[in-house]
């Protein structure tokens, strides 16, 4: 499979009985041997490093099936932990002001076999190894991933076929009478759908309303695609639906999620 082939969706094995997925920092090869699948991933500058038959077989993970596998489904997934991201520059938000931030989020890649009727999950592979971080106090905080990229005010142009990244739009509305000092955000993407628009991927946008330090803030996880992603189609459901109970919990916790 050439790197021009779309990476997402149902992919068929090539004549060499191979599927090769290449992103900027990750290369995944899936080989078919009779009823078995062999899978290997390589990180770094991998475009040239993985050659057919060049690797020792011990590097591969092997899956055995009852019948030969014809297709592999490749789906993007949001990271399995909340993300902590810093804005490019610390920002002071005046009372009643609104700002939009755009965060480039590295996605997980879910591999599974079968068609729409039957799906057997193979592996979930992180496109980028992110560093752990802690958000909150040391007794009751939450384990997160720290994003190396910063939240920007301008919408970045990202080709998801090359980068396995999605853009998350965060709208912050300071509804209080006090200034809001934004130095980092903690975002939970497990309530966001994933959308494809052209070559770019988007998460559902997140709206944050800051009601002052003495009151709980609120977070809304939209179920629609952001306005920037015109004609977007949903390619992955949110792992967890944002229920009212959850929203209430989020409201309670948001006072600490903007620091």
């Amino acid at each position, binding site marked *: 499979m050439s790197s021009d082939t779309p990476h997402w969706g149902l992919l068929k094995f090539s004549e060499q009985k191979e599927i090769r997925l290449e992103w900027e920092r990750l290369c995944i090869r899936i080989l078919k041997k009779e009823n078995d699948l062999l899978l290997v991933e390589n990180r770094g500058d991998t475009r040239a490093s993985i050659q057919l038959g060049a690797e020792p077989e011990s590097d591969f993970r092997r899956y055995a099936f009852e019948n030969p596998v014809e297709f592999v489904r490749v789906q993007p997934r949001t990271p399995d932990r909340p993300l*902590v991201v810093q804005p490019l520059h610390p920002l002071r938000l005046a009372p009643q002001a609104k700002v939009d931030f755009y965060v480039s989020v590295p996605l997980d890649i879910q591999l599974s076999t079968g068609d729409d009727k039957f799906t057997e999950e193979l592996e979930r592979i992180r496109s980028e*190894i*992110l*560093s*752990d*971080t*802690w*958000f909150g106090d*040391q*007794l009751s*905080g939450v*384990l997160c991933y*720290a994003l190396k990229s910063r939240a920007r005010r301008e919408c970045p142009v990202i080709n998801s076929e090359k980068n396995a990244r999605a853009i998350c739009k965060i709208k912050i509305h300071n509804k209080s009478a006090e200034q809001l000092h934004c130095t980092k955000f903690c975002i939970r993407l497990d309530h966001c759908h994933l959308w494809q628009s052209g070559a770019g991927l988007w998460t559902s946008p997140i709206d944050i309303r800051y009601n002052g330090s003495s009151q709980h803030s609120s977070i809304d996880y939209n179920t629609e695609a952001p306005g920037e992603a015109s004609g977007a189609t949903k390619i992955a459901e949110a792992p967890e639906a944002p229920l009212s109970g959850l929203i209430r919990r989020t409201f309670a916790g948001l006072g600490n999620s903007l620091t």
Partner: protein
Amino acid sequence: MKTLDLNTILFALGVFGVGLALVFIIGIILKRALKPRLSPHHLLLAQKSTLYIGIVLVVCTTLIQLNINLTAVLGAAGIVTVAIGFAAQTSLSNLISGLFLLGERPFEVGDVIVVGTTRGIVLSIDLLSVKLRTHDNLFVRMPNETLIKAEVTTVTRFPIRRMDIMVGVAYKEDVKKVVRILKEVADANPNSLNEPEPLVLFKDFGASSLDFLIGIWFEKTKHLTLKNSIMREIKERFDSEGIEIAFPHLTVYAGTDSPPFPVKVSSESSPPFPVKVNSGSS
């Protein structure tokens, strides 16, 4: 006490047997029902409470079936308790300590604790003892009294921990450069938490080294992964940057009052230094 016939005894034995079986069955049902809702610690507590209360009830019911007056038994039990108290002082102490441990909850089932030189995972907290499994897979029974008296460290109590590593480098090294490199190594390791930030301290002028402390925060389950990777990464980075990790060495200095030792460097082919020995008597 009335005379006992065979039927009464058999009936009482039946009550005892069926009662015990019922207690165990109720314990199993309770365990299955509460397992999704309770932590292992609370599950154990509920299971054991059910068991002990159930056994006491079954024994009392059996005694009633045998026409034994429980008031008299309880009265006698007071006297017997005193006697048993003297005879089984250690066991009772453990029993009471066990109740305190269950109430105070300094650790729970599944926690890693350190007591003296013993470090292990808590398997169960019983009325007389706490059972541990050490990391090298040994079973340790620790009397509750010991745990009440001793200092107990619960390693896994909080979700994140800090790993402190001492690094000594040679005196010739640039302190600023060493601090920068240690911080970069800590930041680059994915298991090291970005927040709270890694701590790098120039700690001491050691006997043979400049001593640095690097304190890295990590999620409590990643202790071994971090330990293995960070030590290797520090060594590799120091090697690549040409920083010498210090080893103990001693410099002998004769002082200013005496002249320094004459040193002559010669090649291997040269003859050894001429040594002249003067006898003190001549």
